[in-house]
């Protein structure tokens, strides 16, 4: 039977389930999401870790050199901001990550789409990509230093190598997973190859592609710290390593937490955009 618009709208906002069943659903296999309860659980678990950490550190069971208390870490953090110009370090690290990430994405997206579409491109590029992909990034540090010196170029290049060759394969797979029917529909409606890639393929793969980009951005941070530890005089990774050299464990903790917080923030922001942009998937 046909659904009238009004009825369909009513279906969109079902009566709110009671709280008890929401909690039960959390333990039911493949039950619907319970955003509010899930948020509380996430925050709760985070706080629990914090509380356990505080108790262990403040009780004096463990030396502060090994495990500083949360209070000491917060103090170290403030010190970093006020005395060591930490904001500048954060800014330069974020800039390096985004420069490398954007450079990867700008090349990987068109090339990945071409790889999915043309056997020639795959045949030529895949062996090279697979070869580079298995090289551990730290192994390339000496070479990038020899070639590019210790300037920004070598660090961004290192991050780019670490992410580009992974990202391009993810993008090509996202493109390959677009249903054949979409492509054939486009063709029978008169789309040229170019139009097909732009108007059908890219649009159809976009939600998965944003996920691929989000995951790759995380890898960027991993390689950033490697690059900054080995060859840098600024950035979060550099400060982290310097703090270790002087035995400042609270500062080391503060550095780790900073990276975690930035990562968490970026990830959640992209997830939120994903939900907003791709509302049609629900």
């Amino acid at each position, binding site marked *: 039977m046909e659904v009238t618009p009004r009825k369909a709208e009513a279906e969109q906002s079902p009566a709110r389930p009671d709280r008890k069943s929401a909690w039960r659903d959390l333990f039911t296999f493949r039950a619907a999401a319970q955003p509010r309860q899930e948020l509380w659980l996430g925050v709760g678990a985070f706080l629990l870790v914090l509380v356990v950490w505080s108790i262990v550190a403040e009780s004096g069971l463990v030396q502060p050199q090994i495990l500083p208390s949360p209070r000491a870490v917060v103090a170290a953090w403030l010190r970093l901001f006020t005395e060591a110009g930490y904001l500048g370090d954060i800014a330069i690290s974020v800039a390096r990550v985004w420069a490398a990430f954007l450079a990867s994405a700008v090349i990987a997206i068109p090339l990945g789409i071409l790889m999915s579409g043309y056997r020639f491109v795959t045949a030529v590029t895949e062996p090279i990509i697979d070869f580079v992909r298995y090289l551990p990034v730290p192994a390339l540090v000496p070479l990038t230093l020899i070639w590019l010196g210790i300037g920004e170029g070598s660090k961004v290049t290192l991050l780019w190598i670490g992410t580009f060759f992974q990202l391009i394969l993810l993008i090509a797979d996202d493109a390959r997973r677009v*249903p054949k029917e979409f492509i054939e529909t486009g063709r*029978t409606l008169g789309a040229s190859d170019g139009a097909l890639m732009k108007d059908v393929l890219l649009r159809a793969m976009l939600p998965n592609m944003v996920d691929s980009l989000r995951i790759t951005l995380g890898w960027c941070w991993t390689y950033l710290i490697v690059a900054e530890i080995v060859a840098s005089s600024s950035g979060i990774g550099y400060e982290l390593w310097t703090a270790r050299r002087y035995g400042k464990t609270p500062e080391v903790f503060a550095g780790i937490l900073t990276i975690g917080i930035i990562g968490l923030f970026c990830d959640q922001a992209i997830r939120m955009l994903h939900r907003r942009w791709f509302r049609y998937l629900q």
Partner: protein
Amino acid sequence: MSTSAFIRINQVAKAFATPDGGTIPVVDPLSIDIKEGEFVVFVGPSGCGKTTVMRMVGGLETPSAGDIHLDGKRVEGPSRDKGMVFQSYSSFPWLTVLGNIRFGLRYRNDISSAEKERIARHYLALVGLGQFADYTINRISGGMRQRVAIARTLAANPLVLLMDEPFGALDALSRERLQIQLMELRRAERKTVIFVTHDVDEAVLLADRIVVFSARPARILADIPVSATLPEKRSLDILDIPEFRQIRREVLALIRAQETGLEAAE
């Protein structure tokens, strides 16, 4: 064979490569001539090659032998002349109902954008989705999605409409409604249609002509001129008249003989 055929399938055969390096014949050389405005239904046992023949007409599959001409031009690949409606849902989820129908006009540069908008809304209304213009695809029913696909394909103004079990996934009631709607659309548009179905009632109801295929590799077992016995304007009441039941029996007997033949061979 007359040279005036609108669609001319000439000694077309198809064999697919098998994973072990051999080939498997799916369509034996066969010829079909279709007149402009004719509604031809392909029926035959499952897996016999109906979809393959239709996809070759659509240019989505290349014949291993023979050739196909549409309106005097050789079919070399897919184009806007050959509109396809697939069985599975092929509407784009990132567009609205109206957006999907508009997409059918996107690559037409023979008309202005104001004209495109008018045509899109015309077909939106024609398939009865006027109220749902701004709905996204994931929020409408299966039957409505197929109507979107049909409207989008018609909006592209193809020379021939190729429909591969378009109502196969629908419940009986939606299917009946769409069958009636398709008959009306067709009378209004005078399109040439090739339609594949498993449902013999559907075949007899819609067809000017039924082509019955053998089990794989496909050959033509019978070519039944339905419109010679049944009136052109039909309704669901026709299911009860003797001529209808006669044709239906005939088609069913042909397919059944093939399927028992298949079982005996296995």
